[in-house]
């Protein structure tokens, strides 16, 4: 049957189909796998040798994150040490002497003093109180100045850390970019 010839070349051959087969058969490809083998072998070698691109990028990103983490920890530790030492330098003595609380009039502490010395004692107490307040204010000012300096130091260190991280990131991205460009140059033209 002629339909079978068209389907699976069995049965009685159809002369028109045979003619078309003969005519169009000349359009078949004459290339073989051998023509492709150098490219295939190159591709196989490359596949065995290199990482996938996504793995390279992921490794670079992971490395940058790790570097940032390490820098962060180091920075925190150094800032803490620095601030502790600065605070000790600014306040070498014990923080403040205990403030004497003025006893109420007629208390037991004043009964021993003579009447003539009472105004002098009160003036001395006032003087002592004002000097204490001045000292407190000075300490507060120093503490404030120290905190400002601490903040500045932290800021500077953070800036340095950021710059270093950016340098590392850019160098890693350069490496990855070179790798990807290298892969593309070696890869097939598609």
């Amino acid at each position, binding site marked *: 049957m002629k339909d079978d010839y068209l389907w699976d070349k069995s049965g009685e051959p159809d002369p*028109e189909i045979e003619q078309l087969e003969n005519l*169009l058969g000349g*359009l*078949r*490809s004459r290339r073989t796998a051998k023509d492709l083998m150098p490219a295939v072998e190159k591709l196989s070698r490359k596949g065995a040798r290199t990482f996938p691109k996504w793995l390279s990028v992921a490794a670079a990103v992971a490395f940058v994150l790790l570097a940032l983490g390490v820098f962060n920890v180091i920075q925190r530790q150094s800032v803490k040490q620095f601030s502790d030492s600065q605070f000790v330098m600014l306040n070498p003595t014990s923080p403040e002497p205990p403030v004497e609380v003025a006893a109420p009039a007629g208390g037991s502490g004043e009964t021993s003093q003579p009447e003539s010395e009472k105004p002098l004692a009160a003036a001395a107490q006032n003087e002592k109180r004002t000097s204490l307040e001045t000292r407190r204010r000075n300490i507060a000012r120093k503490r404030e100045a120290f905190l400002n300096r601490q903040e500045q130091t932290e800021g500077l260190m953070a800036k340095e850390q950021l710059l270093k991280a950016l340098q590392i990131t850019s160098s890693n991205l350069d490496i990855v970019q070179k790798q990807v460009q290298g892969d593309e140059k070696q890869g097939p033209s598609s």
Partner: protein
Amino acid sequence: MSEIEATGDLLLFAGERDKVASAAPVTAISPDASLVESVRGGDTDAFGKLYALYSPMVHGILLARVPRSEVDDLVQDIFLVALNRLNTLRDTNAFGGWLAMIARNRAMDFYRQSRVTEELSEEMAGRSFHDTEAREVLAVIRQLPEAYRETLVLRLVEGMTGPEIAERTGLKAESVRVNLHRGMKILRERLGITETV
């Protein structure tokens, strides 16, 4: 008649292609699938065998769509691309359908990228009378609906039988049979050949 039927066939064609891609794992591994596994393992001889088996299909799919002067280079490109992406193929039994899909997509990309140059290269290539006649017949085949032209080129140019076309492309044998007969009928009409019964 033919346009509507061909559209229906094309839909069937696309549906089948999807079926091939998402087919459930087949228990029996075909010889072609074991070749694919060997190629994955770096066996270049297996790649040579796979090329010999499937290059006519890829060549036919491209010849039905792009200028002949470009086809040979594109066939090689497609095999290199396939080799590069072979690890992404989940079901090795579906290699044929997968490769056919790469070839069809590559043909579409070709037209997106270089429509002007192909017109020139097709005209510039001077050939013998026999070759010119073959080109004329091929031009008529290329005007047929996609499903018909691909099947006819595989049958008449590449010399593949219907069952081979079905096996290599992952299409259903019934669809290939229908496409062959309908396509041949339209081709006879357009070439002015009266069918002898």
